[in-house]
């Protein structure tokens, strides 16, 4: 491992694409333990694709993703399962199972992976729901929840196994600004309170300045990273003018 000792995820020389079409070529970056890290880019720059490679859903063409010392690209079987248990994922729509109630959704990983008594599973699931502010919606079906509540429930399910790392795919997509700000506050609270490292894909600039410690900006033209660093610093000092404009929400 050639990464810094405090980095939780190391992305090394990662080249990804669909078939013949390359999306990103030879990118490198680290995510540090305990930070909120955001991946930014214009639509179609491969943000979500990159995230799906980082969580091991897709196989890269070349390169490696190492999560706390173990490569998710090369891991198989039990080793892969061990890596998968280290992180939770919130998908764009929440990806709650429609046939289960909210609390059953959150309980699902406990039911599948632990031998805890029923009381314990209910207590844990309910405590996670309370952490995300959904204790009153425990027995509702996902279809009866609003978009913001579904995302909160998705986060509750993602943190139920106490992961040290949480991936969020466009957490504020489709949410109104107030709900979105509430979600940002929740992310900050979970990051500070539980010490969870966050990696999020987003193009919501407001939430980047309020939650992200560091960001990378993907460049669709060079298929690489245009800028990496603290968002408010990059807004004024990024090398490429379009990155500064992008971060200032100006048309390029």
């Amino acid at each position, binding site marked *: 491992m050639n990464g810094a000792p405090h980095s939780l995820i190391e992305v090394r020389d990662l080249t990804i694409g669909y078939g013949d079409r390359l999306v990103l070529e030879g990118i490198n970056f680290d995510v540090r333990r305990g930070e909120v890290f955001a991946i930014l880019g214009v639509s179609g720059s491969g943000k979500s694709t990159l995230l799906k490679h980082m969580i091991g859903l897709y196989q890269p063409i070349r390169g490696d993703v190492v999560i706390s010392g173990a490569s998710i690209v090369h891991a198989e079987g039990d080793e892969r399962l061990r890596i998968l248990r280290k992180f939770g994922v919130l998908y764009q729509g929440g990806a709650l199972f429609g*046939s289960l109630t909210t609390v059953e959704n959150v309980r699902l990983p406990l039911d599948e992976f632990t031998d805890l008594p029923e*009381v314990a599973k209910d*207590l*844990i699931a*309910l405590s996670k729901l*309370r952490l995300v502010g959904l204790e009153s919606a425990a*027995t509702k079906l996902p279809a009866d929840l609003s978009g913001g509540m579904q995302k909160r429930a998705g986060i509750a399910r993602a943190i139920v196994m106490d992961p040290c790392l949480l991936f969020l795919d466009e957490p504020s997509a489709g949410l109104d600004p107030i709900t979105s700000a509430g979600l940002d506050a929740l992310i900050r609270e979970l990051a500070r*309170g539980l010490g969870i490292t966050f990696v999020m894909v987003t193009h919501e600039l407001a939430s980047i300045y309020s939650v992200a410690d560091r960001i990378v900006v993907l460049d669709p033209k060079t298929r690489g990273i245009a800028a990496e660093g603290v968002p408010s610093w990059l807004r004024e000092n990024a090398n490429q003018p379009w990155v500064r404009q992008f971060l200032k929400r100006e048309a390029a």
Partner: protein
Amino acid sequence: MPEKSSVDLPVRWNLSVRPDGTGKLEFAGELDAESTPVAWRSLESELAGIKVASFEIDVRQLVCDSAGLALLYHLSIGGMTPGAIVNLTGLSPELQHLLRSFSKEDFQALQEHEPTCSSFVEDVGAATGSWLRDLRQQVEFIGEVTLGVMKSLFRPRLMHWKEVFRVFEVAGVNALPVVSLLTFLVGMVIAFESAQPLEQLGAQVFVANLLGLVMSRELGPVMAAIMLAGRSGSAFAAELGTMKVNEELNALQTMGLSPVQFLVVQRVVAGILLTPVLTIFAMYAGLLGGIPVLLGLGFPLRMVLHQVQSGLHFGDLAEGLSKSIVFGAIVASVSCLRGLQTGEGPRAVGESTTRSVVSSILLIILADAIIAAVTYTLRK
């Protein structure tokens, strides 16, 4: 004071009860998702027989995650020592913060929540209601489709012929191999099964007549229609259902386009056009399936063909083909109706697909029975 611990468990605890009714439980080690279940169960059995008035839990030496916290919380609300005043000491501030997210009220609310259960009478009422609503929708739908087809006949510009040909190809042409194979095998089986009883009467040669009649009047159209329902009707329902879920149908409506005119009429017209073709293939394949059997029984090919020819009349063929047109209209329209009726949620499309196949096949058989009864009375 006996040391209660297990060798391979990362957590140890020490339980002591003084004669004055105060108990003390000291934890050390790690309570995680793996060690907690074991600890939970053994503590439960250890504490089961013990009656204490106050109980102190010392967790200064303990590291724990959510699972461990759940155990501590359960202990602290007296879950294992009913009636005792429990005091939890030595919890780190972070864990204390997390422990606050556990709540007895939430748990009780969950336990008291019972899934709404309706009575038998209510169920019957609801089922009858939905059946009547469905019937009404079907009648309305038949009217709407007929109107749509009529409109398209008078104003052919309204008809999307490209879509009709696409459906014709996907649901018709591509289905030919499987329909032919199916009826070929059915023809073979029928020839085999009927040859034995007819042999006892010395009438084995009439297997050819029987096959010709059965295939052209009954099995040809019915098999083709059932295949259409299973293969393409379900696809219609799923396609329209997904469009409904994706709000494409709403988009059509707000553009001022009727989903029936825009999506259903094409499919019904294609269904009416393609089933006779499928049926003719089915009839021929069925006959072809019988021929090897008859040849095997020792009849020459010419004799078999002559028997089929003499036993079959134009009326039989016409009956089969007109039936197939009715079946085609039924399958296409019922499947589209089920697709349009799709509700919300991920299971809705699956449900409407199932309903489309069940309703189509049911209505095919019903229509077949009615047509058979009518033609029988007419022929008399």
